[in-house]
C-alpha cells in the first residue's frame, strides 16, 4: 500500500516539475541598445519593459561584465506570491538583476503578520540569513536601536550603482526612509490612507435630494469632515443603492480583524481628533503617541477616546462581519459595490480597475481623509470646535521598502538589486501598474501640478480616467499635508501596537467601551516602556518624531 502512495506522490510531483520547467523559456531580460540606452524586460506575464539611459544603471553593470558573479543575495519579504503586492516586483526584477549582475537572488517569503518576528529572530540570533529585508517603517525603532541596518548614503553618492534619489519624496515619506538624517531605506512603496467613495452614487441627484431632506444640508461630495461622512454613511446604510444585487448595501466598510491591520484605521481617523495642530512640533502640538517630555501615553486622551467612539459609530454603518475582516474581505466588499465608502491604502484604487474583481471601475473616486470638526487641545486640556478643520495627512501603513542587513556579506550586490527597483523608470512603472502593491508617492508618479507624470501612462496601464485623477490628487495632497500624523518608530513599536490592536478590536466588537479599551492600552504601554527602559525609549521617541527641547 505504501508503494501505491509513493507512486501517487511521485506522479503529483512530476506533474508539478513539468509545469515548472515549461515556464522557464528564453526571455532576453537585458538588451544593451546601440543608442546608449538599456532595455529591461521581465517575464512576459508581467508585461514589463522599460528603456533607460545607460548611466541610470550605474557604472558597475556593463554588457560584458557581471560584477556580482557567484554572489547570492537573499531578500526577506512578505509573501503575496509572484504576482502579488510587494513580493511581486521582487520576482519580476529577479531575472533582470541576475542577468545584469551574474548573481543569484533568493526570495525568502513569510506572511506579512510574521515578517517582523522572522526578521528579528534572524537578526537577534545572529543567523544572518538575509542580506536585505523588505521592512515596514515601524520596524525602524528596533533596527536602529540595535544597529542592524547598513546606512546607504555612500552607495547613493557613488556612481557605480543604479541612480535614484530621496529628493523625489515628500518630507513625510522621506522621514520614513531615514533616521536622524541618515539614509537606510531604498525607495519603493509609499503608504497612506485615503478615502474612497462611489462617485456615481454620491453624485446621484436623487440621493442628494434625499440626503438634504433628511439632514438639512446639501451632501458635500466628497465629505470634508468625519461628521459629514458619518451622516452620509448613515443615510446610505441599509438602502439598496447599488443594483448589482437585491440586498441592502452599506455606508462604510472597515477591516478590523485583530492581529492584522485594523488599528491603522484608528490611527488615521483619530489623527484629526487627537492631534493639536501647530506650526511646529512641540510638547503639545503635532504629537500623537506619547508626551515627548516623559513618555506618558496620550492614547487615552479625550481626543483619542472620542475618535474611537466615533469609529464605533462609523462601524455601525457597515456589515457587522467586518470585525473579523482583514483587508481582502473589506476591499472585496467595496469592490463588489456593497459600500459607499472605504478608507484604506492605494491598493484599493488599483483593485477598482481590475474588472475580474471589481464592478465599480470608473466610479471609484478618492479624496483625502476628512477631518474632525473638533479636536483636543493637549495644552489647555479642552476641545476646540472649528468649522474649517485643518487637514491631517498620514503615512499610515508600512511603506514597504528594502533595507540592508548589517550582517549581509554582499551589501554591494544587495544594494545594486534594491536600487534597480528604485530608479525612476522602474518606480514610475510600479506606481502606475496597480497589481504590485507599490503605491505612488513620488514626484514622477504624480501628474502636474504635483509632479511630472503623464496621465496617459496611467490610462495605458488600464486606469479609468475618472478614478486616476482623483486618486493621484488625493495622494499628492495627503503626503504634502501641513500636519502629518507622526509615525511610531521606537523600539518595541510592534509590541505597543499589538496591545493597542487587541484593545481596539475589543472596543469594536463591543467587549469594552472606548474609554476602557484606551485606558487599558495606556496602562499596558506604561508597563512596556518601563520594561524596555523609559529613558532610552524617550530618547528614541524624540529622535523619531524630531522633537527638540
Amino acid at each position, binding site marked *: 500500500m*505504501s508503494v501505491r*502512495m509513493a507512486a501517487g506522490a511521485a506522479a503529483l*510531483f512530476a506533474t508539478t516539475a513539468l509545469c515548472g520547467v515549461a515556464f522557464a523559456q528564453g526571455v532576453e531580460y537585458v538588451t544593451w541598445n546601440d543608442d546608449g540606452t538599456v532595455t529591461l524586460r521581465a517575464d512576459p506575464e508581467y508585461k514589463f519593459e522599460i528603456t533607460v539611459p545607460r548611466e541610470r544603471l550605474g557604472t558597475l553593470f556593463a554588457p560584458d561584465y557581471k560584477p556580482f558573479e557567484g554572489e547570492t543575495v537573499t531578500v526577506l519579504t512578505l509573501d503575496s506570491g509572484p504576482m*502579488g503586492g510587494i513580493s511581486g516586483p521582487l520576482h519580476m526584477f529577479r531575472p533582470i538583476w541576475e542577468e545584469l549582475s551574474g548573481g543569484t537572488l533568493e526570495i525568502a517569503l513569510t506572511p506579512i*503578520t510574521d515578517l517582523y518576528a522572522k526578521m528579528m*529572530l534572524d537578526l537577534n540570533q545572529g543567523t544572518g*540569513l538575509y542580506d536585505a529585508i523588505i521592512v515596514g517603517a515601524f520596524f525602524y525603532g528596533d533596527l536602529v536601536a540595535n544597529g542592524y541596518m547598513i546606512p546607504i548614503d555612500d552607495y547613493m553618492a557613488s556612481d557605480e550603482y543604479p541612480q535614484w534619489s530621496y529628493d523625489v519624496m515628500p518630507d513625510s515619506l522621506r522621514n520614513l526612509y531615514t533616521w536622524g538624517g541618515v539614509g537606510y531605506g531604498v525607495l519603493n512603496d509609499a503608504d497612506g490612507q485615503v478615502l474612497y467613495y462611489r462617485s456615481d452614487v454620491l453624485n446621484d441627484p436623487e440621493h442628494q435630494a434625499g440626503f438634504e431632506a433628511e439632514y438639512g444640508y446639501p451632501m458635500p461630495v466628497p465629505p470634508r469632515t468625519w461628521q459629514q461622512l458619518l451622516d452620509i454613511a448613515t443615510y446610505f446604510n441599509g438602502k439598496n443603492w447599488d443594483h448589482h444585487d437585491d440586498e441592502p448595501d452599506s455606508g462604510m466598510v472597515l477591516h478590523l480583524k485583530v492581529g492584522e491591520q485594523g488599528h491603522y484605521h484608528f490611527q488615521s481617523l483619530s489623527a484629526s481628533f487627537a492631534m493639536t495642530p501647530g506650526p511646529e512640533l512641540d510638547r503639545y502640538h503635532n504629537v500623537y503617541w506619547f508626551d515627548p517630555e516623559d513618555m506618558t501615553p496620550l492614547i487615552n486622551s479625550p481626543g483619542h477616546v472620542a475618535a474611537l467612539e466615533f469609529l464605533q459609530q462609523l462601524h455601525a454603518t457597515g456589515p457587522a462581519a467586518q470585525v473579523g475582516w482583514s483587508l481582502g*474581505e*473589506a476591499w472585496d466588499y467595496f*469592490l463588489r459595490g456593497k459600500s459607499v465608502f472605504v478608507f484604506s491604502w492605494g491598493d484599493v484604487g488599483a483593485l477598482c480597475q481590475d474588472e475580474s474583481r471589481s464592478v465599480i471601475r470608473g466610479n471609484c473616486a478618492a479624496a483625502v481623509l476628512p477631518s474632525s470638526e473638533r479636536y483636543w487641545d493637549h495644552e489647555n486640556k479642552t476641545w476646540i470646535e472649528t468649522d474649517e478643520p485643518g487637514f491631517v495627512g498620514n503615512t499610515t501603513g508600512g511603506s514597504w521598502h528594502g533595507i540592508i542587513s548589517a550582517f549581509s556579506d554582499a551589501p554591494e550586490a544587495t544594494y545594486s538589486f534594491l536600487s534597480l527597483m528604485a530608479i525612476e523608470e522602474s518606480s514610475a512603472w510600479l506606481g502606475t501598474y496597480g497589481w504590485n502593491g507599490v503605491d505612488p508617492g513620488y514626484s514622477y508618479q504624480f501628474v502636474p501640478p504635483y509632479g511630472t507624470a503623464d496621465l496617459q501612462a496611467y490610462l495605458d496601464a488600464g486606469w479609468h480616467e475618472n478614478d486616476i485623477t482623483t486618486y493621484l490628487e488625493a495622494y499628492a495632497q495627503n503626503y504634502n499635508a501641513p500636519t502629518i500624523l507622526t509615525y511610531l518608530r521606537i523600539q518595541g513599536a510592534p509590541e505597543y501596537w499589538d496591545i493597542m490592536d487587541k484593545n481596539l478590536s475589543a472596543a469594536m466588537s463591543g467587549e469594552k467601551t472606548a474609554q476602557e479599551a484606551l485606558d487599558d492600552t495606556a496602562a499596558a504601554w506604561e508597563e512596556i516602556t518601563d520594561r524596555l527602559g523609559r529613558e532610552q525609549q524617550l530618547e528614541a521617541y524624540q529622535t523619531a518624531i524630531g522633537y527638540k527641547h
Partner: protein
Amino acid sequence: MSRRSMEGGMRQSSFATALYSLLALVITLIFFFPLYWAISNSLRRPSETFTVAGLGVPFLDFTPTLDNWLAEIQVKEAYNAFTNSLIVSSVSTLLALLLGLPAAYALARFRFRTIPNKDLTVWFLSQRVLPPVATAVPFFFVFTTLGMQDSLISLILINATFILPFVVVIVRQTFQDLPIELEEAALVDGASHLRAFFRIAVPLAAPAIAASCLIMFAFAWNEYLFALILSLTEASVMPTHIAGGADTRGVQFWFVAVRSLIAMVPPVLLALIAQRYIVRGLTLGAVKG
C-alpha cells in the same frame, strides 16, 4: 473489521434501515461539507469567492476554472514546500521507526524491573501529551546556536520526537499479540534476540508497522508550530506555505483553497489507507480497532 456480524443482535425493519441510512448520510455530508467548499472555492474566480449562489456547485452555480491550480503549481516556492514536506515527513517517520520498533519490542517481550513496563509505556506516551510550546523556546535557541535554523534536519529531529509514541504503542500491542513461541523456537535454535526480532517479529507485525508509519507521516506532515518557528525559506513546508497565503491585500482564498487541498491530500489519503489502524493508533493503543 468486526469479529461478528454488523447487525449485532439488532432487528430492524427495512423502513427503519432506510431512515437511519438517510440520517447517517446527512451527517456524513455535513462533515464533508467544509472540504467540499474548499474544492468548490479552488475552482472559482477570485471575484466569486464570496458571491457564488447556493451551494457553489461547479457548472451549476458558476463556471469552474483551473486558473488557481495552474498558477499555484507554477510557483517555485510551492514546489519547494511540497518536496520539503515529503522529505521531513518521511525521514522523521523512518527515524522514529528506527528508534521506536526496538523499544516497542522490548516493552512487549521483556520484563523491566527498575521501572515497570507499563510506566515506561506511559512515559513514552507522555511525549504526545506534552504541550509543544513548552519546548519551543529551548529548541529554537539550541538550533539557532548550532546554525540549524531553516534546516530540514531540525524539523526532522523534532518531528521524530513527537511522533515516536505512535510506533511504540501501536506496534508494542501487535508484538504482544504475536505468539511468543515462534521467537522462542528460533532462540532455542541459536538465533540472537536481534535476529529473532528482525526475522520473525518484524515481518509478522508488518501491517501494523506500515499503519503506524502512515499515521506518523500524517502527523509530521501537519505539524505547524515548530515549522513556523524554525523554517524560513529553504526549509519551508506545506503548513508554513499555506499560512503564507495572507498578504498585504488580505488572504487570497482562491490560492489558499488550492494550497490547503494540496496539503491535505497526502495525509488524508494515507489515513484512508491506514483506516484499520487509526483507532488503535490515535488512542495510543488504548483501544483495539
